[in-house]
């Protein structure tokens, strides 16, 4: 297969309004020249121009046509089965929280540096309490865990563990006697004893009603459709971090990957200006990824634009890391992800340890892995 590259002149530099770090609400996505900044456009033979114009005007009309939108909504609901659910992946969350024993260790070391001899923490299910108690035992620090009286009954085993490790577990009976009350009590203690005490903030485990926005959005990026589907709504909300994850295949240095935004250059492919994987002669490089859906040497122009604007961050994940994530999520949540989605899931390994407790991460679970079980079985010992 031959990839044909159209040559062209790049349009004038975008105006100041579209410079990196500017207010996203002022961006036109796309603008009247069908561009996202300098990306996008209509690099096509003349014969296609008319058809594309017709398509564009029809699309713009239908976007606001009540009848069309109603029909579409009905089909999406009854045929496709939307809305797809926003599912709290409890065991996966727990998995990363457990890895935050690292966090507890770091904090204990910090406390020692600060000369604090007394550690307090709050606990819901008790995992954080146990982690803290463990670390305090190791570093010979006094440990007090505040826990809601209700939770103490439900998680009696963890309470026993904490006490065995030498921690004092104080029951909180106020309010609903659960995590939020334990947290309040812990803060009260800290405020009273701040000279001697270090507070190791734990994470909220309860599935509270979430009256807010996500903090971080994560999605895999091949051409970029599922990612844009998730991101688009939130582009103007600058407090929402957006992370795209590309395929690093055998590794970014191997030359066998599909990490367009990480390793590519700007050019025109398949009719639009965007980042793409090309060699010094402008030939398109054959991409590779274990997941077919990410195996593409280009990326959508809107992604290229968002990258240059600094609005979205892009990372990459190898085949091996994706396979590990595939296995991990299947076992922890009983959901088999597509290999494409597994790239986004793999990024959680690097991402979660850097996030504050209680951060809300929404990952686009773009597809199921039934189609990939044969492939995966070959690679993993199943």
């Amino acid at each position, binding site marked *: 297969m031959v990839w044909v590259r159209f040559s062209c002149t790049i349009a004038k530099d975008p105006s100041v309004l579209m410079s990196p770090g500017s207010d996203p609400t002022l961006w036109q996505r796309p603008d009247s020249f069908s561009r996202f900044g300098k990306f996008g456009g209509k690099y096509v033979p003349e014969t296609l121009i008319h058809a594309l114009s017709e398509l564009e005007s029809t699309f713009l009309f239908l976007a606001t046509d009540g009848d069309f939108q109603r029909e579409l909504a009905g089909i999406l609901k009854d045929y496709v*089965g939307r809305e797809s659910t926003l599912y709290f992946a409890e065991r996966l969350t727990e998995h990363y929280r457990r890895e935050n024993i690292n966090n507890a260790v770091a904090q204990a070391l910090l406390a020692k540096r600060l000369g604090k001899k007394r550690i307090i923490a709050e606990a819901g299910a008790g995992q954080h309490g146990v982690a803290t108690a463990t670390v305090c035992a190791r570093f010979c620090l006094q440990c007090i865990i505040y826990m809601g009286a209700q939770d103490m009954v439900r998680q009696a085993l963890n309470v026993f563990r904490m006490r065995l490790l030498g921690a004092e577990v104080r029951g909180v009976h106020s309010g609903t006697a659960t995590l939020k009350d334990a947290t309040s009590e812990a803060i009260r203690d800290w405020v009273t004893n701040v000279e001697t005490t270090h507070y190791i903030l734990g994470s909220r485990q309860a599935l509270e009603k979430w009256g807010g926005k996500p903090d971080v959005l994560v999605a895999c990026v091949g051409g970029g459709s599922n990612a844009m589907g998730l991101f688009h709504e939130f582009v103007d909300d600058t407090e929402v971090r957006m992370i795209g994850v590309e395929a690093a295949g055998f590794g970014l240095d191997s030359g066998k990957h599909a990490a367009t935004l990480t390793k590519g250059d700007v050019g025109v492919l398949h009719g639009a200006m965007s980042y793409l994987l090309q060699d010094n002669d402008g030939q398109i490089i054959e991409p590779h990824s274990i997941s077919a859906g990410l195996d593409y040497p280009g990326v959508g122009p809107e992604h290229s634009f968002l990258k240059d604007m600094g609005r979205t961050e892009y990372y990459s994940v190898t085949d091996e890391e994706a396979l590990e994530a595939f296995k991990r999520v*299947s076992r922890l949540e009983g959901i088999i992800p597509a290999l494409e989605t597994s790239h986004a899931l793999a990024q959680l390994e690097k991402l979660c340890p850097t996030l504050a407790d209680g951060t809300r991460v929404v990952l686009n679970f773009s597809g199921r892995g039934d189609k990939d*079980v044969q492939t995966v079985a070959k690679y993993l010992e199943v």
Partner: protein
Amino acid sequence: MSSTKIQIRGQPLSKVLTRNHGMINSVVCGVPIKRHHRVSNVLRTSDPPLGSVPTRTDESQFLRGDGNGRFGRFGGKFVPETLISPLRDLEDEFNFVLNDHEFQEELTTALRDYVGRETPLYFAGRLTEHYKNISQTTGGGPEIYLKREDLSHCGSHKINNALGQAMIARRLGCKRVVAATGAGQHGVATAAACAKFSMECTVFMGTADIEKQSSNVLSMKLLGAQVKSVEGTFKDASSEAIRNWVGNLETTYYLSGTVVGPHPSPLMVREFQSVIGKETRRQAKQLWGGKPDVLVACVGSGSNALGLFHEFLGDEDVRLVGVEAAGLGLDSGKHSATLAVGDVGVYHGSMSYLLQDDQGQILKPHSIGVGLEYPGVGPEISFLKESGRSEFYTATDQEAVQACMLLSRLEGIIPALEASHALAFLDKLVPTLRDGAKVVVNCSGRGDKDLDTLIQRGMPSSLC
């Protein structure tokens, strides 16, 4: 031939001739008959029914069976003594969670966020049009709706039950779950639920089925389950799973996938699946301000059918139609049409219709829809047939494959071969219905798992 006295509901009965006791293949709850005093008996359907059918003072209550796990004369607990106590514990636990607000809320949340319920009630416009064109009617023709259980997590209705029972297992403090699976859908659903609730999972599967449904086997393993092969098919895997359970009663929960087995299994599974019918009622009300006229579902053991039907048992104006697998034809001897040609007897712990020969040996069933390949049927289904509340028909392998391809082409939905049996029956049903009749077919699963089978059958060139 020897004879045995049978007591049902405390009423002594005259001697009934029994069939040969040498039923080597038959097991009562997984325990070989030879080691056990044989409690089962094969009854000819021409004899007067044993026990009296209660008078129909409360139709709906009558149809839902009594509290002892009997549906008319069907059901019961034909098990070794060792199992009576665990079954009673299970029954107590189940009765508790039925009314426990916390349990129900957790289950509802999981069904919503994990499984993806409610599943849509989809108006199959092109399929409706197809039947209208065939009949060349001037009127609108009947309207066909599909209850989209194929859109659920894991691809079939099986997850509704697996989730609920896994939650019960967790409550009972069991660390380990065992299950048996035919097509693999129940195996995958159980493996998924166990992964979600961090329990060990062992799934037994027949060697013949493992070969036919290899992608489901891989899925189960990826989900963390152990898959153990058993010589034979689903019925043999069932027996082995039950044996395994009996040997590890303290730590292990036997997660039944369908409405067979000793009480309370048929009741529990039906209750967890009844969400299908409850949603359908709500959705029908929303969509056309009324009830369905006809409900159609495939019947292997009966879980998806009961899931859809149960809600409407008391609605006399709603017709309930079950479709069994006629395999290579009812005369070929290679089918799974238990209700059509079977006899009443005891199998896997309960009294129900089953496929058996003159010697009382269990017949080997066949169907291209592996999930329908079972020589028995749930006791509640047997009861619905006998009471006349539901009608049962059959569809052959060939008819099912045709129906599968038709739906794929007309609606872009590839149904499981099991559900395709229900769809196949529409050919005969729809022409008999009035214009505007609302037909709801339970699309109980998606057909991805059957692609290899369909490819082997060969895609008709007209469909390419």
